[in-house]
């Protein structure tokens, strides 16, 4: 079991470094480190992120958007090992600037070849990259209702 954990860790780490670069830029680097490699059964996992040009500091010092991208990179890195049949994202794009929303949706479009995605969003750029849109309304106060949404009305 420890051996399996180590193998999985190494594969996730490789993916994490690759996904991080894709979400940030080629010059940005990040790493995952076992904080207690002697004790595989109980070791935790440290993350070091070094956005380009910046000295690596604790990821708690990163900005709101950088934290979102870093956590997403880790979750996507794990997903790539064992893609789930469907993925759900609830407003994860809220802290991201336009350019980063673009990178985020580009990656999701790639993964959607293997999994179905359900994305809740308020972001217009995210909306423009999905295949189908459902609108939810409460025309009758307190009662939710699904309505079809015409793509063209969004542009």
């Amino acid at each position: 079991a420890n051996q399996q954990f180590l193998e999985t860790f190494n594969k996730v780490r490789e993916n994490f470094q690759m996904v991080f670069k894709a979400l940030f830029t080629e010059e940005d680097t990040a790493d995952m480190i076992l904080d207690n490699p002697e004790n595989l059964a109980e070791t935790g996992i440290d993350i070091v992120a070094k956005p380009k040009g910046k000295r690596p500091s604790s990821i708690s010092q990163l900005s709101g958007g950088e934290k979102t991208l870093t956590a997403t990179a880790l979750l996507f890195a794990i997903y790539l090992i064992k893609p789930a049949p469907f993925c759900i994202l609830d407003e994860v794009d809220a802290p991201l600037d336009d350019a980063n929303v673009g990178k985020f949706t580009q990656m999701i479009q790639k993964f959607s070849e293997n999994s179905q995605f359900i994305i809740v969003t308020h972001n217009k750029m995210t909306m423009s990259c999905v295949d189908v849109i459902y609108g939810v309304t409460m025309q009758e106060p307190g009662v939710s209702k699904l309505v079809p949404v015409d793509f063209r009305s969004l542009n």
Partner: protein
Amino acid sequence: MRLKSLEIKGFKSFADKTVVSFDEGITGIIGPNGCGKSNIIDSIRWVIGEQKISALRSENLDALVFNGSKTRSPSGLAEVSLTFENTRNLLPTEFSTVTVTRRFYKNGESEYRLNDVQCRLKDIHNLFLDTGVSNDSYAIIELGMVDDIIKDKENSRRRMLEQAA
């Protein structure tokens, strides 16, 4: 196991029967604040077997049932059904689709069904074992989870990783 549709009735703000169809690819859900988008996500978590009521942003099971509005009286029952293609033969191959149904009655009773045959919650959990579908999965992401990963709350990074091991 391709999702085909989700049916919600009496669950949280969805007083009336609502059907969400899933095609290939990416489905977007949009709408004003408070209209029920996250409630749809909660209904998926619930029907695949979520037992931690806090993960559904509620304090008890009663809070999952439509509790009424100015124009409507409360529901007596919350029911959610998720239908997907039986591509992995989770059920015997004569079934082309699998429908998982979960019900909660305000009197406290719960019911679980697989293709409309009553079963136990355990059977629903077993059905999804090894499919990669689970609550607490790296595949259901919201902003609270981003924060947990950054702070490594309750060893969340390791727990996520172990699901793919």
